[in-house]
């Protein structure tokens, strides 16, 4: 027990010193840290409840996924049958309903070819041999395609990965610091933006699908039929300034052909969005505008026509401008959304939390005061109860506080409001190990053992209890970390760090202090 070789002392002190040093940058204001060249140093990350900001949980609209896959498949089937080799397959009565798409083949001799063509449009899902669509023939000429759950799931999975990237690009464009964008489960995205107190703005930006399409307006369409929502073949009817407008289904260009988008002002000084196309887009745009001078061209965003200007002259430069009653703010939002690409899936907000900057500041302030008072009270109490041994425990608690903060900074753990509570609780429990040890020492003294024996037995007998007790405590911490969400997790992180560091400081570190004292003073009696 008294055997503390120099290397052991050095390594214990070394570990603690590193822990403390890691905590230091978090106490220096960020600007000062940068001046001192410590800008790289790890800092404690404040949770949204302390830093203020917005937390938004987005969920994929899976019902919408099934619907849009069905519509897409309808278009794909039409095209594939028409382009079928050696001979096009004539189909009719195509209808989409629920999870199925059904159509009939006009020439019964072509049913097999049609089935093959339809099968070729499906994709395998996973390794089990199932495909994303089942193709069946009913009533000898009717083909029914049913989308499988596996197909929808796989689509959602891929789309979510893409959606996370796009949401990240959009948030980054806002220039806020340290946002969190993470996939949660299979169909959710968690977005946390510290310092952003306007969730409405944030939602407008990330919730926008930003599916951009350029389509020619069908000027030949019968206005009466358009008004009755009966599109001519090959057309679709979209809303434009509250009225229906017939456009050709075929998109000339889509958002995928864009190179960049930025907020601008048009010749009338109105806010607009300037876009430039990539090589392929420029070519298609030039070609279409050359061939259709004088005709209107619809710019469609998320299924709504935002403007339909006439093509006055061929546009060859590969750039265009979208105007349509924007404010500078909405134009900016649209530009960011277009620049980052369109979301492959519709996202809905299912949870939203905003903490104002004032409350966060108040909470940090209150948290620091409460922690300081808690530390002071515990320190005084321990000293009054255990004297010298209490002081050792106090030293251990103080170091413990810094080491937890240092660890949290390095591991980039987030300090939340319940985290502060966990912190205060840790201060309370950190002395428990020392209480156990010191009470044991007292017991052994009462039984008449000498100083060295009492100390030695105290540490030895208490160590096992400390281990058992902290193991169970750690189990609850782990469960909180694994199963908890939000604040529960934040609390669990601090608790677990606290358990780990407090065992080390209160058992190993104080033992070293006691051993050094005994070695130096050779006390015959002690006050405990």
């Amino acid at each position, binding site marked *: 027990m008294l055997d503390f070789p120099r290397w052991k002392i050095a390594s214990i002190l070394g570990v603690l010193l590193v822990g403390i040093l890691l905590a230091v940058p978090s106490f220096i204001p960020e600007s000062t840290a940068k001046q001192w060249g410590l800008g790289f140093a790890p800092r404690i990350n404040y949770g949204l*409840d302390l830093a203020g900001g917005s937390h938004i949980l987005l*969920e994929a609209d899976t019902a919408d996924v099934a619907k849009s896959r069905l519509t897409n498949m309808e278009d794909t089937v039409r095209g594939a049958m028409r382009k079928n080799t050696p001979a096009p397959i004539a189909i009719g009565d195509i209808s989409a309903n629920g999870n199925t798409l059904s159509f009939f083949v006009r020439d019964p001799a072509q049913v097999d070819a049609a089935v093959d063509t339809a099968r070729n449009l499906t994709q395998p899902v996973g390794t089990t041999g199932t495909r994303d669509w089942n193709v069946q023939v009913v009533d000898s000429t009717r083909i029914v395609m049913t989308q499988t759950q596996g197909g929808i799931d796989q689509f959602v999975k891929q789309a979510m990965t893409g959606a996370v990237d796009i949401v990240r690009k959009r948030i980054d464009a806002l220039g806020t610091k340290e946002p969190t964008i993470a996939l949660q489960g299979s169909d959710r995205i968690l977005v946390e933006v510290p310092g952003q107190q306007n969730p409405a703005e944030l*939602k407008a930006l990330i*919730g926008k699908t930003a599916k951009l399409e350029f389509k020619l307006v069908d000027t030949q369409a019968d206005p009466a039929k358009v008004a009755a929502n009966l599109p001519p073949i090959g057309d679709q009817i979209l809303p434009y300034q509250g009225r229906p407008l017939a456009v050709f289904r075929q998109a000339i260009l889509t958002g995928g052909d864009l190179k960049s988008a930025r907020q601008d002002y048009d010749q009338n000084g109105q806010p607009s969005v300037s876009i430039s196309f990539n090589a392929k887009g420029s070519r298609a745009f030039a070609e279409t505008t050359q061939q259709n001078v004088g005709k209107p061209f619809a710019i469609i965003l998320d299924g709504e026509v935002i403007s339909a200007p006439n093509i006055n002259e061929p546009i060859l430069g590969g750039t265009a401008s979208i105007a349509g009653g924007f404010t500078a703010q909405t134009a900016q939002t649209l530009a960011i959304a277009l620049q980052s690409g369109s979301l492959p899936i519709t996202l*809905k*907000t*299912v*949870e*939203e*939390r*905003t*903490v*104002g900057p*004032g*409350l966060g500041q108040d*909470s940090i302030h*209150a948290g620091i*005061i*409460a922690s300081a*008072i*808690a530390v002071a*009270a515990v320190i005084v*109490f*321990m000293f009054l*109860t255990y*004297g010298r041994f209490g002081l050792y425990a106090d030293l251990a608690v103080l170091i413990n506080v810094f080491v937890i903060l240092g660890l949290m900074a390095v591991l980039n753990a987030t300090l939340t*409001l319940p985290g*502060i*509570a966990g912190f*205060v*609780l840790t*201060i*309370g*429990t950190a*002395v428990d190990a020392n*209480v156990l040890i010191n*009470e044991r020492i007292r*017991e052994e003294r*009462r039984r008449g*053992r000498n100083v*060295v*024996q009492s100390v030695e037995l105290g540490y030895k007998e208490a160590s*096992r*209890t400390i281990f*058992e*007790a902290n*193991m*169970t*405590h750690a*189990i*609850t*911490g782990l*469960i*909180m970390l694994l*199963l*908890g*969400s939000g604040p*529960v997790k934040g609390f669990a992180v601090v*608790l677990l760090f606290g358990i780990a560091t407090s065992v080390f400081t209160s058992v190993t570190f104080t033992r070293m202090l006691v051993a050094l004292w005994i070695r130096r003073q050779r006390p015959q009696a002690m006050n*405990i």
Partner: protein
Amino acid sequence: MRLLKIVPDNTNIGFVKLRGWAFGLTLLLTIAAGVLVGVRGLNLGVDFVGGLMIEAKFPGDAPIDNVRKHIDALGIGDAQLQQFGPKDTVSIRLPLPPVHDEGATNALVAKVQTALAQDHVILPFNQVDTVSGKVSDELIWKGIFAVVAAVFCIALFGIVRFEWQFGVATFISIFHDVLMTLGFFALTRYEFDLNIVAAVLTIIGYSINDKIVIDDRIRENLRKYRQMPLGELIDLSVNETLPRTVMTSLTILLALASLLFFGGHVLRGFTAAMMLGVVVGTYSSIYVSSSLLITLGLDKSRFRQMEEAGDKKKAARARAERIGPKA
């Protein structure tokens, strides 16, 4: 310097003798807590029932009646106003709008803001939480699952590391602690949210900590005093660990009290729950879990056989490590 001694040396309180009374009282309190939770229910926050929660701060005392008047006039459903924190802050709870599209909740928040701005200096809202029914259902199940999983894992730990009676006794007393805490929330109507689940889990962790220390001492004494009757042995163990139990509870209560008084209103419910949990947990460690061992029939002879059949080398090593005369 004379050191502080909260608990005098060599106490000899007959805890086991009192266990009939303690069990009766505990059972009564536990049933009362259960009934209270069943009848009055918990004041579940938006985390668990879904909805919209706005925390508004006013320059002076919050004009509750006026706020209520304005919000009722909006006709946006049944609003609940609460004030647990400082006098200038009021929390407004609203059901989510039936059409849940992107703009609807924002519009609702804006509506409330405009309505309040008619009579009051308008400050930005402290906090706005919106939780959809789907998410809140998941959160509540996750919360319940976490608590149940924690209790079971710990009981399992008790069974593996000690004897089954220890595991079961711990399980029962933890159940009691949790129920008492829930009873407290049903009684005070403090909002029960995700933070409180963290508090409940912490109480479980702390309470277990406490019980394990006593259990460990009982096990140690079972080895030491093989002939002592179980009741006497438990009394001895609880008395021996009493100074530690009281000391630790006091330090933790001290730390929590500073959080309660200085930690800001957001954590008040959380802290109150933990303080109560510490008191209840300490009580159940002393009176419930250890005394239950007798009721459950901890078999001393079986324990002795296991010990004797146990690893003799280990015992020899332990003896060799000791310095000085034997006890």
